[in-house]
């Protein structure tokens, strides 16, 4: 049964009509028109749809609406804007760390979540955070460089 559900997305409260079991991904993309959360596989295998729920990286294709009610959802659009990118986004632009870039918004959400709790991660910690992401263009080394640069940029800001 579709029912009204209150969500907090990028700091704004909004109401949607959905089934409690509907994955957050489709509501973000179709109801709220936040296309920066990418649909990759819809199966929890690729990580393209990663968002933050209370600052934790969560795959939105595996997050039923009822699980995020009352929690703060952040998407890539809430992380930074083209005219004021988040340090993680700036680092990826600086390193040109993408090819097609379809997987990168999810990857940046995971890195931002990691840097939020671990400001100076080791490479092992970075790889662990990236382990749930697939990039078939093969930009992996650039992605790692960008992640390290992001840690530096955010360290400099503190």
């Amino acid at each position, binding site marked *: 049964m579709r029912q009204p559900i209150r969500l907090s997305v990028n700091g704004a409260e909004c109401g949607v009509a*959905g*089934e409690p079991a*509907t*994955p957050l991904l*489709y509501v973000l*993309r*179709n*109801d709220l028109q*936040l*296309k*920066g*959360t*990418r649909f990759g596989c*819809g199966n929890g295998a690729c990580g393209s749809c990663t968002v933050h729920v209370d600052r934790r990286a969560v795959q939105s294709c595996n997050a039923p609406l009822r699980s995020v009610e009352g929690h703060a959802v952040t*998407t*890539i*659009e809430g*992380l*930074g*804007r*083209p005219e004021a*990118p988040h340090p993680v*986004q700036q680092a*990826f*632009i600086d390193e*040109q760390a*993408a*090819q*097609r*870039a*379809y997987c*990168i*918004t999810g990857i*940046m959400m995971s890195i931002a979540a990691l840097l939020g709790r671990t400001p100076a991660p080791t490479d092992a910690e970075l790889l662990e955070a990236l382990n749930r992401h697939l990039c078939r263009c093969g930009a992996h080394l650039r992605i790692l460089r960008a992640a390290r640069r992001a840690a530096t940029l955010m360290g400099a800001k503190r």
Partner: protein
Amino acid sequence: MNLRPLPPDLQANPRLDRWVGIGSGGTVDVFIGKVELGQGIATALTQIAADELDVPFTAVRLTMGNTDICPDQGVTAGSWSIEYGGMALRAACAEVRRLFVREAALRLGVEEDAVKVEDGKFYAMPGAPVLSYADLAAAVDLTCAPSGNAVPKDWRSRKLCGMKVPRTDYRGKLCGAAYLHDMELPGMLHARVVRPPSYSAQLIRFDADAVRAMPGVECVVVDGRFIGICARPEEDAIAAAIAAHGIGTWEESADLPEETEGQTWMSSLQNETSVVDESSAAISDNVRG
């Protein structure tokens, strides 16, 4: 005068103003019938156009995939956007540049060969009068067909092609900009295909009406063993596709070899041998042996 065969995309769209527009204010519009899907062609095609027109990279305003005003170049697929689209654009820009050089030569009172183009400026010698694309635009008619004898610049004199130029689409994409396939049209439905459970599984029985009765489903297509479902919203298409898979009765047969038989099975299939390179024949014999 050597007439060169025009690239196919330029032959199919044989009017220069389909490709390039020079505004009286100096804007350089480039039109291309391909779309940026993350391949980086917006950046690469801008490099090609800027190099051939001799204008700064940032002076080019690229319009992609607008079917009202861009050349018809068919699909955006494979590596054709650069191999065909890029070569057509380069040839078109060489034609445009040549027409502007001709006009500049008239105005400067020199031979065409004597006109140099740099950074969007035309001049005959250092310190001499300088004309810009904007100065000449009103006198150059681009509604004409390509002549076929404008030769693109020698690769050694290109300044942008072959260089690393930051991608023009990253700032948007990395901040969540939509891709082409995110476009939503009025009344659009979402669809899912139901995959057969194995390679040659046949669909024996399928109650399409049961799927049609599911929430949100607008249309169910069954063609042989193909099942497609259209619904709105998207999550209803997904739910219906999962249900449809279970509703169908499939007949499966074991027609794939065991994993261990992969190597012998592959070469036992009907095949066609062709030699790619004589010098590596010995190597492939070793591999085969």
